[in-house]
């Protein structure tokens, strides 16, 4: 199996071959000898040159090695190319998104209003903390997509500034 793995801003070529209990493995062309055991679902014990690593799989492509967590994107080469094309569209209307799950406690402006960069648009509350979402730029509020009292999830678009 071949993968491209994106981690800390760099892409690595990974090749894996399962041979009985062991994995033959190469990273960016150099061979890595490891002994792997899945000790519980989502937890690997990996030995490499005697060093013992506990590797955990979290949600959202998080991989934890010992105490360090990494966000990892993984793809096989076919799908890789297409995904790279989709990134980084910063032009056009700016969508204001909730930074974390919570409830909308206040809406500080109205649809159609002119706003300045940094001006508060929506206040979200979670776990007794309030988070004010501010406009990323000067512009006009083209739509507000939430109501006061509504629950939002992280990343949900709450308003659009154009």
């Amino acid at each position: 199996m071949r993968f491209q793995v994106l981690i800390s801003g760099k892409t690595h070529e990974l090749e894996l071959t399962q041979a009985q209990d062991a994995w033959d493995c190469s990273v960016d062309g150099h061979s890595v000898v490891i002994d792997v055991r899945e000790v519980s679902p989502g937890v690997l014990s990996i030995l490499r040159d005697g060093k013992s690593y506990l590797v955990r799989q979290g949600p959202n492509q998080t991989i934890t090695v010992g105490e360090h967590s990494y966000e990892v994107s993984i793809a096989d080469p076919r799908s890789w190319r297409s995904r790279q094309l989709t990134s980084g569209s910063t032009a056009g209307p700016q969508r204001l998104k909730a930074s974390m799950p919570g409830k909308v406690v206040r809406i500080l402006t109205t649809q159609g209003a002119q706003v300045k960069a940094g001006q508060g648009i929506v206040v979200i509350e979670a776990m007794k903390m309030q988070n004010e979402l501010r406009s990323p730029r000067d512009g006009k509020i083209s739509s507000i997509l939430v109501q006061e009292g509504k629950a939002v999830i992280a990343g949900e678009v709450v308003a659009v500034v154009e």
Partner: protein
Amino acid sequence: MKMFQKILVANRGEIAVRVIRACHELGIAAVAVFSEVDRAALHVQRADEAYPIGPAPAAESYLNIERILDAAKKSGADAIHPGYGFLSENPNFARACAKAGFKFIGPPPSAMEAMGSKTRARQNMEQAGVPFVPGTAKGLRSAEEAEQLATKLGFPVMLKAAAGGGGKGMRLIDKAAELPSAFEAARSEASRAFGDDEVYLEKAIVNPRHIEMQVLADQHGNTVYLGERDCSIQRRHQKVVEEAPSPAVSPEMRRRMGEIAVRAAQAVGYTNAGTIEFLADEDGNFYFLEMNTRLQVEHPVTELITGLDLVQLQIRIAAGQPLPFRQEDIHLRGHAIECRVYAEDPENNYFPSPGQITSLTEPSGPGIRLDSGIYPGWNVPVDYDPLLAKLIGYAASREQAVGRLRRALDEYYVGGIKTNLPLFRHVFEDADFLAGKANTGFLSRFASRPQPAPPRREEEIAVIGAGIFQALTGGATSSKNSDEPHSGPSAWKQSAREEALS
């Protein structure tokens, strides 16, 4: 008075579990209450009985006196433990408990009231000879008056809003020339924030430490102090790391502080467990801040160095038993440090991170105590404060306690949501912290220092691990949505100081 047979715990999360444990250890049945989102919570599982008290918002459940008393009646409990936060410092709740025939496990309502209002507390405490930060408690009429007073107190001084809280209307002033404009600015800020432009002046405490003294008083006139806790490591006025004893407190200072705390408690007819919070300067002077008329979140560090169980003692005191020891029987041994584990994302401005815990490995072993309110599968609700658990390390010395916490942090894994566990790893490697020099400014200065990068070899293991997980789960391709820019800048503020944990 007879020991209780059944106690209702009017709280949730780790402290509800903590109180239920104390009940069980004393052979007392424990009753939980829960809101709609807490049906599957750990405290419900651990209790002998559990009753629903309403919808998720605290105002409709954990702060609803009537519903809690209804549950107490249904269960046939004979006492109620309020935990911390929620109704724990509400004298009306204490009175309502008494009226409905339930013993309230805490101080008398009169003592709660005597300490609950800033002005009444100051009056009572000044009479008892408790030291305050030098300054005026009453409003200043003009910048000139402020300047006269400041010269008398000595710079730096602090301007504060009389109606204030949360830093609004506060100004630190280093020299006289800054006073006139600062005076006007503070007044207008206070006016905007609180509708009241009264400001007053205090001597500024430079690099203060937050040090608090635990007291315990029975209903037979015995009051003792159990040593101090150093709670200087805070973020947004929320305590993050606490320890006992304080590296900045000498035995002589402890004795003075303890005796003053006992006097303060006695001055308001205090019984049960309580805490006097002080601000301490670098010269060992300390000044009264406030009294918390309840159990503190950080009570475990005191338990570890004294060998006592504060919750069991709270229950015994409420049942009318005398304290089983006197001041001279209390010996501090070793050093304890507590980490408050919050559901928050250290890589994203410490935003709250509620959600489901998909995987959990908890530390244990020598010198490690974990007071936790979570379990694998638990869905941490968005509705309450983000405290998940308290990790406490205890050992013969401070250095050894830090060593134990370091290895416990290596063992600790919470999957599915973000937590502030990585923060503690950095704190326990920090030279200032290790030297015992952390004051209340520590975390804000700390955040700006560069954190060590993870080792290269681990990153390669992460790459390999990611591939193996992919292969094991059938090689399905998945990708992270990173095609959208982040939302605009955002700012945080603390809500509802009444419910803040301290």
